[in-house]
């Protein structure tokens, strides 16, 4: 009996120690997860050019693609000034390039980067970063935003380029038919093989806030439609998220809305005709965050094999005490949403960024930023079991010296990859970690 009790004691010790990892107790310690073990960090891009804003997407053939931005090479006109804070030998320039690399081993190693934009442009990043989709034809399709003619980032344009079949990319073209009116683009392949591109548009500057515009495209890059409006009342500075069902006939989009009182709740819009028309927006949660300024933090949407829709977002709610990353699910195809669940409360006053993906077994994988004990933004991660109630312990996956932000996840079967941007003063870098998740 003593032996049994000793075993029980040891098992209890092991379980508690393993379930309560060092990184949870001390957020500064790099990740050693209880449930997900990430590989060591790797960095994408040229560290001298401030890589930033990674976005990951799997191709149908299993390759993982990453797109990010980097400073355009611009030497100092009269040599580097002494004591300048900017890292590297190049002068800071608003001109940025979009770079693409691919991985055949789920994010562990990467091909040499290829520059997407043939012309030198100020490719935008952060919330408004470039996005990539990859077709069954193995070609990559990319959208990004550049400032308008007068350099105004808020009156911007959506650019598009695709693999040219010769190892490069086609010259970029502008997708918005009204100049200097579009940003926050997303691009996805619908299951029917057509491309759907959406963005936030301001060609009608009022009376309602921004509009949601779409266009559809053939895989050869030919436009199937002109720009068309499917919604209005969008927050002017928060990214969109999209998902599909029924072979592309059903399209789901989530965005942060803004009403006349500047309350910014999130909504789901659903199309049952392949994105031609959308239903009236369905409120996901009445958070009541009244903010007259730019949160710059959009929601994330995933759909599982049961057809349930999973959404995560950041809100301050009705007071700072409510602030945090929230999650909700719709089990009736977007008609209603369950009461929100708090995934992680703000540890300090800060806008947080989030991203989720859903596994083949309906597990939800959620990543977000929050502040650690030293007031540095770090990336955190946890999973929600298919039962919709059981959250894994939180893991800290970054150990940034400055701040880590805007995590982005990609998942294919059991292979999970996470990327984010780390900034420290004037320098930035793109960090990637991978994991094989258990099912």
């Amino acid at each position, binding site marked *: *009996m*003593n032996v049994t*009790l*000793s075993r*029980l*004691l040891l098992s*209890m*010790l092991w379980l*508690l120690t393993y*379930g*309560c990892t060092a990184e*949870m*107790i001390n957020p500064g310690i790099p990740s050693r997860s209880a449930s997900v073990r990430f590989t060591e960090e790797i960095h994408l891009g040229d560290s001298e050019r401030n890589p930033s804003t990674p976005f990951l997407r799997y191709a149908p053939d299993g390759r993982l693609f990453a797109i990010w931005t980097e400073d355009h090479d611009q030497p100092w006109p009269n040599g580097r000034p002494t*004591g*300048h*804070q*900017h890292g590297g030998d190049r002068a*800071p320039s*608003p001109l940025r390039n979009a770079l693409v690399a691919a991985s055949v081993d789920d994010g562990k190693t990467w091909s040499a980067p290829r520059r997407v934009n043939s012309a030198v442009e100020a490719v*935008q990043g*952060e*919330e408004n970063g470039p996005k990539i989709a990859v077709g069954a034809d193995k070609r990559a399709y990319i959208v990004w935003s550049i400032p308008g003619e007068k*350099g*105004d*980032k*808020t009156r911007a344009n959506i650019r598009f380029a695709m693999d040219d079949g010769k190892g490069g990319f086609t010259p970029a073209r502008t997708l918005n038919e009204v100049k200097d009116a579009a940003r926050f683009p997303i691009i996805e392949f619908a299951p029917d093989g057509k491309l759907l591109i959406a963005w936030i548009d301001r060609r009608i500057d009022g009376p309602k806030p921004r509009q949601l515009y779409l266009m559809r495209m053939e895989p050869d890059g030919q436009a199937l439609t002109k720009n068309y409006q499917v919604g209005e009342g969008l927050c*002017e*500075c928060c990214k969109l998220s999209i998902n599909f069902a029924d072979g592309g006939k059903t399209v789901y989009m989530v965005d942060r809305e803004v009403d006349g009182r*500047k309350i910014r709740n999130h909504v789901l819009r659903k199309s049952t005709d392949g994105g031609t028309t959308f239903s009236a927006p369905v409120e996901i949660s009445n958070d009541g965050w009244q*903010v*007259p*300024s*730019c*949160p*710059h933090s959009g929601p994330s949407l995933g759909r599982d094999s049961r057809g349930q829709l999973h959404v995560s977002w950041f809100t301050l709610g009705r007071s*700072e*005490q*409510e602030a945090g990353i929230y999650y909700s699910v719709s089990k009736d195809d977007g008609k209603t949403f369950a009461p929100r669940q*708090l995934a992680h*409360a*703000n*540890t*300090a*006053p*800060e*806008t947080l960024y989030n991203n989720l993906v859903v596994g083949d077994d309906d597990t939800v994988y959620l990543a977000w930023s929050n*502040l*650690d*004990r030293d*007031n540095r*933004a770090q990336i955190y991660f946890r999973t929600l079991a298919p039962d919709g109630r059981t*959250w894994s*312990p*939180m893991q*800290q996956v970054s150990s940034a010296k400055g*701040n880590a932000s805007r995590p982005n996840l990609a998942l294919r079967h059991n292979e999970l990859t996470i990327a984010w941007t780390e*900034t*420290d*003063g*004037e320098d930035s870098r793109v960090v990637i970690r991978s994991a094989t998740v258990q099912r």
Partner: protein
Amino acid sequence: MKLSRMRIGLSAALVYVILTAMCMSPSSAQHEHEIKTTAAPTVGAPAVAFDLKTLDGKSAGLTNFRGKPLILNFFASWCDPCRDEMPLINDLASKAAKDGYNVLGIAVEDTRAAVTEFTKESKLVFPIALDLNSTVKRAYRIFGPPATFFIDGKGIVRDIVLGPITEERARNALQRLGVAGKN
């Protein structure tokens, strides 16, 4: 035997309690609402001190502006309402020397290059500091730019405008700073 089992049982319970307490430490508690930094800036309270550098490398701390009222504007080059209100802030700045106050812009979640470009493009006439690590933004609880703080010569916050400021609102805030009627 019975005593030994009891000891082991007690030890197990003790270890369980200790480790559970460790697991519920602040970093891992799931529904904790602790806000760790200083209290939110409020009207009538001293402004939070900071120490930043301007785009041209000059020191831009709160103490640099003591003795004269200060309009502290948080903005970002990517932010729509910031761009909308910037002509008004710039107009206030153009009258600042004559009317005896200072204006300082603090760029948040932005880069030197983008802010420099924005400053040129918008022909800004006041100094701009870079809050590259977001420390001042957090201290002033900016959950989204723009935000403008009106601070008197003794470093006391006299008015706060979250979101874009209007002419009327600016006039009222200047009155609170004691520079009313000069604009």
